[in-house]
């Protein structure tokens, strides 16, 4: 722990024993982002405490600090009144803090029993005692799901069952505090009901629950207290009885729009470039139809898991379409892979820059020219001087230092990496550009530049589809906003009609 990072903090007070958890001035940096700054809050023992906020507000990060997955860069953490320093989830579990993850963390190839006992397999002379292991696992599951066969492989279970096993792992190892990180994001309605029942029972046993979610109905039916975070800062903590949904939504947004940059003039819209008709891919999205015009910026809003990236992937040939069709300039397009999409003049700046956007082992120059190499080559021979000249022009335009042309992109900052991905697609001169979270993990300066670039591209007649979890970003950039919820298009708003509150309500399904 970095003691130097501590600010002056009072000694624990006597009434601290009342609180199960106390965060004191907690801060956390990730490269390019301040995920949490100076968050102080208390969670009462035996309560169910909601952490709310937009995507990227820092709520999951806070939960992960409590459960030992991340270490804070500053501040102190108290559990049952005692200051703790968790270096790993194991430490946290030893102190009675467990976590139920959004992305499940199990060995899929092992049985339920093996997973549950993985930390301490019962053994005799180096051999695992199977009966004893299964007995222990059954005891752990007794209260939560006695019907579950502990010999089944975890990979065969449904997500809901896997979550139950996670909860069993946490409760069974004696956790008195359990963090639930958006537990219902991948559950059906029925499965979610069972989870709520279980949380109710845990509460009766005096277990403290910390519930990370932005789904309002769940927060109000389950939780006693709610804390709202925004941009990594603590906004307010109130009993749920003294607050309304509208209050929470307002606190979650609360950011003056003025800090964003005005964009292009939307009057210069041209002809229709791309039309999607009734796109359907079972379990991902259904019956999605929309159109993009030249020079228009359309935003695509939705909660995580609403199917935004999947729809984008379908336009780019990465997602299998069961039915529906895509028309480019009025002609039906056959798009089976990204190569086809590129030939139709479609570009995609993907969500996961490091995995999908860039080949990290290659240089910035080679990454930029990757989809457009044919332009600089004849009979497979690359004209390197031409390649370098064209890339230099792009880098100048995007204000990336050209000295980084030959550097492996792995060493560049998040903002510069994102600019390399943008350069890659600018080089392709697409008539439709899809941007999936174009400013995630990018510093403020680069963000403004990227926004300006989007406006400029639209002005020059590119049709743009922007996906973003940051509503203010969508609102400033877009001429119109499409809203997806659970794979369905639930709203289509013009710039004039759209407000953060309205969008958030549509996204979350509030009436």
């Amino acid at each position, binding site marked *: 722990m970095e003691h130097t990072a501590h600010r002056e903090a009072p000694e624990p007070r006597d009434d601290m024993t009342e609180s199960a958890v106390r965060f004191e001035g907690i801060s956390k940096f990730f490269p390019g982002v301040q995920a949490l700054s100076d968050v102080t809050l208390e969670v009462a023992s035996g309560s169910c405490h909601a952490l709310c906020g937009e995507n990227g507000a820092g709520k999951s990060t806070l939960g992960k600090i409590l459960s030992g997955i991340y270490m804070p860069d500053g501040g102190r953490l108290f559990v049952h009144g005692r200051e703790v320093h968790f270096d790993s989830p194991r430490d946290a579990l030893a102190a009675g803090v467990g976590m139920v993850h959004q992305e499940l963390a199990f060995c899929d190839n092992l049985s339920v029993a093996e997973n549950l006992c993985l930390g301490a397999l019962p053994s005799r002379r180096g051999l695992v005692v199977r009966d004893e292991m299964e007995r222990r696992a059954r005891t752990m599951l007794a209260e939560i799901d006695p019907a579950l066969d502990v010999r089944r492989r975890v990979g065969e279970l449904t997500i809901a069952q896997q979550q139950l096993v996670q909860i069993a792992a946490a409760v069974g190892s004696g956790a008195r505090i359990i963090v639930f990180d958006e537990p219902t994001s991948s559950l059906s309605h029925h499965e979610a009901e069972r989870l709520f029942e279980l949380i109710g029972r845990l509460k009766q046993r005096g277990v403290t629950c910390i519930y990370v979610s932005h789904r309002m109905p769940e927060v109000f039916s389950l939780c006693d207290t709610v804390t709202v975070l925004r941009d990594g800062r603590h906004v307010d903590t109130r009993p749920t009885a003294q607050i309304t949904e509208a209050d929470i939504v307002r606190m979650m947004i609360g950011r003056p729009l003025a800090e964003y940059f005005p964009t292009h003039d939307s009057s210069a819209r041209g002809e229709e470039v791309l039309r999607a008709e009734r796109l359907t891919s079972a379990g991902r999205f259904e019956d999605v139809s929309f159109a993009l015009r030249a020079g228009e910026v359309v935003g695509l809003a939705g909660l995580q898991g609403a199917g935004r990236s999947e729809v984008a992937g379908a336009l780019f040939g990465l997602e299998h379409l069961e039915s529906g069709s895509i028309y480019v300039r009025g002609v039906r397009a056959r798009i089976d*892979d*990204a190569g086809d999409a590129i030939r139709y003049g479609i570009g*995609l700046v993907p969500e996961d820059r490091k995995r999908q956007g860039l*080949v990290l082992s290659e240089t910035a120059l080679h990454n930029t020219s*990757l989809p457009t190499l044919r332009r600089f080559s004849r009979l497979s*021979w*690359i004209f390197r001087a031409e390649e370098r000249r064209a890339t230099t022009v792009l880098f100048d335009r995007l204000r990336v230092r050209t000295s980084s042309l030959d550097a492996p992109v792995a060493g560049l900052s998040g903002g510069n990496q994102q600019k390399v991905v943008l350069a890659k697609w600018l080089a392709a001169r697409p008539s439709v550009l899809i941007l999936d979270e174009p400013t995630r993990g990018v510093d403020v300066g680069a963000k403004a530049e990227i926004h300006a670039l989007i406006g400029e591209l639209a002005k020059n007649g590119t049709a743009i589809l922007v996906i973003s979890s940051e509503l203010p970003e969508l609102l400033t950039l877009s001429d119109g906003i499409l809203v997806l919820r659970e794979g369905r298009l639930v709203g289509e708003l013009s710039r004039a009609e759209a407000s953060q509150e309205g969008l958030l309500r549509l996204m979350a399904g509030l009436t």
Partner: protein
Amino acid sequence: MRAFARRIVSSQETGLVLVLVLLTITLAALAGSHPDRETGATINNFWNSHTLIQTATDASFFAIMAIGATVVIISGGIDLSVGSIYALAGVTMALVLRSLGPMSDASTTLAGLAVAVGVGLLCGLLNGVLVVGLRVHPFIVTLGTMWMLRGVAFVATKAESILVPSALTAVTKAPLGLGGGLYPVPMISMVVLTVIGAVYLSRTVMGRHIFAFGGSIEASRFSGLALNRIQIGVYAVSGLTAGFAAFLGASFYGSSSSGDAQGYELYVIASAVVGGASLIGGKGSALGATLGALLIVLIRQSIRTLHLDQNYEWIVIGCAIIVAVVIDQWSTRLTARRLSRATT
């Protein structure tokens, strides 16, 4: 000029060249000498044209295949079947030439070259199509074809050794004006193929795509590359080099049998890896592969030159491979650290 010098010093292969030079100097210093039978002049037991060209000839067959293997390894794959492709290409060439009967020297040679390279290419394509079509890991696919192809060669020849027409031997053993029992053709072929391989990897769209594919399949997919074509292509290249090596080898030694090049796949992969190719993919070079093959053959040679117990050959080579790769990883990490300091 300074930038050029810096590029030379920081390049991946400089370390290998250094090791090769040091090993050569050490061997020359320790080898001792003998008087020439005719002229009576003192001749170093290692540093003489005969031993040097012999060493390079030994290395050339591995090196040529190692260039192909490097292409596969850069793509993140592996090809265990090159030794068997060599054997099958060699015996097919010998059988076809035997059944064609006498022709002019030139047409015999060209027919032989076409058959060996063609068979190699087909076997490589088979590997590639199996890897792509069955979605099975290339280790398994090429482990299977390794046995299958050698089995085909075995059955086709009924386990006999087949003679190769002397016209081919005349080409691969052409003295090219050197005389004195020196045969530089395999060595020259090695150099030429290294240059072709280096150009292929660094200057062509195909080469660039192979690096991208090996670095990140996902990012390559998002960039619209034809992934299947790239993957089939690398195994085709590997088969092609094995076929060419078979043409050289079978012609050079004058015969071919289904037992040829047994175990070569491991020497070949070792050469590629010692030459800096990363089994994770995304990294490697043709020059590195050739230098790696030279290093392994030189280590083997040093045991003979220094009159060490030949029984220790495998132990020494095994250790050398691990040491070479560990040193390579250290230097890569150091370079990465230097780079990250330079950019921040």
